[in-house]
């Protein structure tokens, strides 16, 4: 556990230093927080913002942010020739792997929560009626609690696999971005091409389950995806293999 925290500390410092280094990339999170925390909430109003639908954009944006930092954490460590020194230390493979993943997830989570918090303030300020509005249904709170870690973990674990096969940070980031687009666009097209009885089955779920049940169901699916991707990441992140890469 101590080693995990040590790696997390180092990774967090590196992410913060990289993101505050004054490059154009360092301003992107602030721009995004402004978009998801001010512009969208301003347009949405309190009813839509304090709902499951209102929470989806910042949740997924937090996950997208992870693609950039996870590539830098894994492919970057190799590109900057620091990986072998890290592997020559007493740290176990798992503490390195999970410390890095946790730091990247924490960064995505901070971006999501910052967007949601600023969004809440914006909505309340614009629509002030003497009372503070907050999320009022179980589904929203469940999504707020489970969404960023579960979606973030899936992206981070996929990022590990892609980064370990990439020679540069740029290559890893590009591959991850393309893969993300392919999954999203592919899911939209695939949903249209599903057999009629499958569509009916999905429609029945969508219209008969409560929002909270839907969130829990989606969380279950993401949990399975997370576990499969993490197991694949652990199998790939092996010291001897990484040294020879």
């Amino acid at each position, binding site marked *: 556990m101590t080693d995990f925290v040590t790696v997390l500390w180092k990774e967090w410092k590196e992410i913060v230093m990289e993101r505050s280094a004054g490059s154009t990339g360092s301003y992107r999170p602030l721009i995004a927080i402004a978009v998801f925390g001010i512009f969208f909430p301003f347009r949405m109003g309190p009813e839509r913002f304090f709902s499951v639908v209102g929470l989806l954009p910042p949740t997924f944006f937090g996950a997208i942010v992870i693609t950039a930092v996870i590539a830098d954490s894994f492919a970057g460590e190799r590109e900057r020739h*620091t990986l072998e020194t890290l592997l020559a230390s007493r740290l176990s493979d798992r503490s390195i792997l999970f410390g890095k993943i946790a730091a990247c997830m924490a960064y995505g989570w901070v971006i999501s929560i910052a967007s949601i918090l600023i969004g809440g303030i914006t909505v309340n300020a614009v629509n002030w009626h003497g009372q503070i509005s907050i999320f009022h249904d179980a589904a929203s709170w469940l999504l707020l609690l489970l969404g960023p870690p579960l979606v973030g973990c899936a992206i981070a674990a996929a990022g590990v696999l892609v980064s370990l096969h990439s020679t540069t940070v740029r290559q890893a980031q590009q591959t991850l971005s393309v893969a993300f687009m392919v999954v999203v666009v592919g899911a939209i097209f695939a949903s249209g091409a599903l057999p009629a009885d499958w569509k009916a089955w999905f429609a029945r779920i969508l219209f008969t389950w409560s929002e909270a049940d839907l969130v829990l169901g989606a969380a279950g699916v993401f949990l399975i995806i997370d576990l499969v991707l993490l197991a694949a990441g652990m199998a790939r992140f092996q010291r001897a293999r990484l040294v020879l890469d």
Partner: protein
Amino acid sequence: MAELAIRAQGLTRTFETVRALDDLNIEVPAGSVFGFLGPNGAGKTTTIRLLLGLIEPTSGSAQVLGFDTRSQGAEIRARTGALLEHSGLYERLSAEDNLRFYGRVAHMPKAELDQRIQELLTHLGLWDRRKEAVVKWSRGMKQKLAIARPLLHRPGLVFLDEPTAGLDPVAAASLRDDLAALAARQGATIFLTTHNMAEAEKLCSLVAVIRQGKLLAVGSPADLRSRGGGQRTEITGRGFSDAMLAMLNQQPGVSQALLENGRLVLVLKEGEGVAPFISLIVREGGEVQEVRSGQGSLEDVFLTLMEEEK
């Protein structure tokens, strides 16, 4: 018999068809500075990776600080420090954070870590700039910090892979002095790979020469100098032609004849006198003005070994 920090028996590593290390047998006494010399691609880095348990040998075995490299790599890595081919520094982080990270990795208590960071950075003249991101530093400063890193937790054994590579002569000399002082103060075993013979001569109590994965010689620098024929003769004069060099290189008593800055250099085999070769040179039309004889340097021995194995 002295306690051994490293013992390798028949250590061999093959990468597909390439034999990177071939039947290496070495013993490194605890507390010594061991120089592992060889040209690029000789197998030095592979040896360090094997000794750290980062990769497994194809055959043979090695014990480092009493632990088997094949099955106890984690124990070895916990008790050693390593500066590998690259500095391994996180350039976005400050010098202090770089050392703090590796100190935490080594489970050093905070108070001891703070004190050790101050001690090392002060000794290396880096303390005043400890809060700066390392990316802003010169190569020499980075390399000093890179050497401080593996020494931080006072390991019993430190691997240094070409620590002065790429530095200018002044920075390299300064770094060598720092390294010698730190090693002496700490009393650790140092396994140093280099192709800088002056560095090996200055720092090492024991030296091994490796080429294409094969160990060619082991001994103290003085041993190797005497074993390599030892006698180096520099002849100043005129008329030293390529034909004369070729003729001298064919003489059974000559290990090597070459021209260096206009001077004819003869490295003679053990027990050979220089007089017959002077006569030969004069007979072949050479004009001899001055002859200086002395023991060959480690570099001469190294070059001779490389030539012999070709």
